[in-house]
């Protein structure tokens, strides 16, 4: 356009003249775009962070129950198991041709309201979250000895534990549980880095430790709630089954810390635990190398669930069917991804509410923007008339109004995006320390871009239509018989 420099100069002076109004409009556009993009982003992030709670696991096998129940129990550690998976079944699953690995997990104990997960050290290599990210230790090392415990990031942060601290686990979930396993105090051997998943809220010990803790109860054949039941005749630990008795043999009064254990009355099992913890364990560890003790000497009688990885994802459904039809006991295999999606749909209200909020914010920001632009258009009819009377081409008038509207919207949008990125950075700084949650900075998804396009489209509409109307009006006293050709060329 031949008058471009004049156009820009006039637009700049016009904006400066109406600076306070323009600043308010920009602020309001920025605020509503910020809320719009922010809510939409949170909605997408909530969904994807939910879906990335667990990855790298092809199947989760548990006693037959609802799919979502099994997911809640095994991944989120919510609820309690109605039945368990016997160690024989774990072995059978492992031996399946397509199964690459199977990691058993056992639930049922807690520490200060955080749940304890008994598993094998392999868990730390196999369990993945997000986009196949592995668990990492921020401090210490995985559990090795019987009395080692690894803490999730949140557990360590909330309870201010460090590597080397000694803690006592409790049976069941309630903090007030009367059954504290003070027969076996644990030492913190490692602390995991934050993941933003339920992993952060758990404590991890070896399956054999779970068995050892419960040895006493089982000997009294007290009921065990939750997952980790120890078979009455548990041959855990005792490397080669020579020592079944020790579970029941008592009174050795192994001086160490037996003083604490009040509940059980008979200051007994500790003998066994200690022996077994300190001697047998090591023995067993040694043998580990030469002997494939896995098959012969189950560390525990039953487990709550088994995480299964396959050689080839194509065989997932075949293995699932095999598990579902397993004759030995009633088992259920779930695909974590599918079950997570089902659970998310169950929680769909949350998403629907966020979506509703996004839509409302979008509409209100659109209406607000349009109202402001329309008001300023009305104000400027006289100005358009003046420009027309001094021979300003129609493109100049239109260009002036468009430049101003688009500049206001663009500055608002840019401010909103910068503010959102800043907010995400700040939130990530806080969240990753506290929760290990990382919000992605990828704020441009399909629906956000669509929203921005709609904002621009309506801005154009709201600017051009009144501009053309004002154009028509300026030609005479409200009449526009022959306006047809006014804007045509």
């Amino acid at each position: 356009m031949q008058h471009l420099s004049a156009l820009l100069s006039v637009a700049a002076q016009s904006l400066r003249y109406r600076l306070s109004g323009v600043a308010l409009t920009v602020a309001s556009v920025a605020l509503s775009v910020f809320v719009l993009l922010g809510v939409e982003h949170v909605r997408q992030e909530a969904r994807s962070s939910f879906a990335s709670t667990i990855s790298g696991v092809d199947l989760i096998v548990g006693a037959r129950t609802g799919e979502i129940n099994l997911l809640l129990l095994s991944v989120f550690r919510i609820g309690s198991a109605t039945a368990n998976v016997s160690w024989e079944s774990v072995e059978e699953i492992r031996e399946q041709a397509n199964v690459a690995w199977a990691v058993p997990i056992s639930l049922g104990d807690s520490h200060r309201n955080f749940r304890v997960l008994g598993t094998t050290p392999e868990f730390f290599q196999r369990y993945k979250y997000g986009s196949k990210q592995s668990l990492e230790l921020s401090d210490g090392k995985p559990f090795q000895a019987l009395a080692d415990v690894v803490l999730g990031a949140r557990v360590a942060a909330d309870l201010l534990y460090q590597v080397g601290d000694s803690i006592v686990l409790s049976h069941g979930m309630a903090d007030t549980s009367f059954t504290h396993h003070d027969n076996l105090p644990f030492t913190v051997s490692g602390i995991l880095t934050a993941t933003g998943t339920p992993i952060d809220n758990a404590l991890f010990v070896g399956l054999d430790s779970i068995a050892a803790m419960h040895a006493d109860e089982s000997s009294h054949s007290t009921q065990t709630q939750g997952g980790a039941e120890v078979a009455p005749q548990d041959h855990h630990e005792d490397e080669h089954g020579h020592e079944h008795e020790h579970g029941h043999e008592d009174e050795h009064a192994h001086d160490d810390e037996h003083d604490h254990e009040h509940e059980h009355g008979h200051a007994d099992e500790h003998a066994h635990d200690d022996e077994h913890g300190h001697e047998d364990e090591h023995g067993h560890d040694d043998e580990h190398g030469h002997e494939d003790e896995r098959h012969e000497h189950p560390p525990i009688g039953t487990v709550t669930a088994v995480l299964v990885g396959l050689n080839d994802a194509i065989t997932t459904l075949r293995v699932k069917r095999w598990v579902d039809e397993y004759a030995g006991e009633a088992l259920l295999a779930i695909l974590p991804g599918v079950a997570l999606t089902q659970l998310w749909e169950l929680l769909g209200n949350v998403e629907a509410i966020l979506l509703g909020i996004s839509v409302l914010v979008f509409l209100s920001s659109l209406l607000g923007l349009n109202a402001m632009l329309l008001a300023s258009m009305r104000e400027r009819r006289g100005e358009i008339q003046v420009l027309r009377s001094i021979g300003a081409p129609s493109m100049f008038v239109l260009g002036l109004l468009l430049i101003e509207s688009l500049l206001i919207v663009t500055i608002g949008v840019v401010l909103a995006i910068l503010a959102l990125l800043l907010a995400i950075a700040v939130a990530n700084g806080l969240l990753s320390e506290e929760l290990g949650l990382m919000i992605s900075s990828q704020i441009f998804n399909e629906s956000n871009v669509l929203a921005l396009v709609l904002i621009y489209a309506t801005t154009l509409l709201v600017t051009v239509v009144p501009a053309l109307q004002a154009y028509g009006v300026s030609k005479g006293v409200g009449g526009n018989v022959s306006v047809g050709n006014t804007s045509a060329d």
Partner: protein
Amino acid sequence: MTQSETDTTAIRLQNVLYRFNADAPVVLDVPAWEVPRREKIFLQGESGSGKSTLLALLAGLQTPSSGEVTILGTAMSALSSRKRDRFRAQNLGVVFQQFNLIPYLSVLDNVLLAAKFGETAAAATKQRAIELLQRVNLPCDLHQRKAAQLSIGQQQRVAIVRALINSPSLLLVDEPTSALDHANRDAFLTLLFDVLAERDCAMVFVSHDPAIGQYFHSKVRVSDINRAETVG
């Protein structure tokens, strides 16, 4: 410009009909009307007599429903809207009742913007604008003020300068004094005639106020040239 230079009429209307749309009543019906070059004419009409529409047609801001409007020898309806804009910028000066200036531009920039559209912009234009502003008693310290900061009387004087900066051959003026008191009105008119006396410029001055007619030799009532029954 060849035709317009040789033509001896500033304005020629032939069989001009105007209505807002096809179903609306005719607002303006002028079978024939001519204004010679350099003629200064007082067009008196009450509001609703169609005088504003007439002025919009003369300025090329509006085109007639039928008939021919010829300004300075150029048929307005033959021009594209863009060419009409340029023709207006180069050959016509327009002064309205009020609100003649862009409020956020300085006095000088208001004048220079008009010069830009008239494509007379040159190094000398700014000097000429300053001289003209001083000619209508607007001292230099006012030139950089925003137009909105001036009194209405001052604004109307800026409007005259703005209308004359491209040395138009026809000045169209619509009730420029209606917002002024008597003293200011008389001062404004005297100044207008003084400035016009120095140039070859025809003028159509529209007002409802017969008192202003005393400044003019030729006076016309809108009702004399417009046959349409207009609604008051």
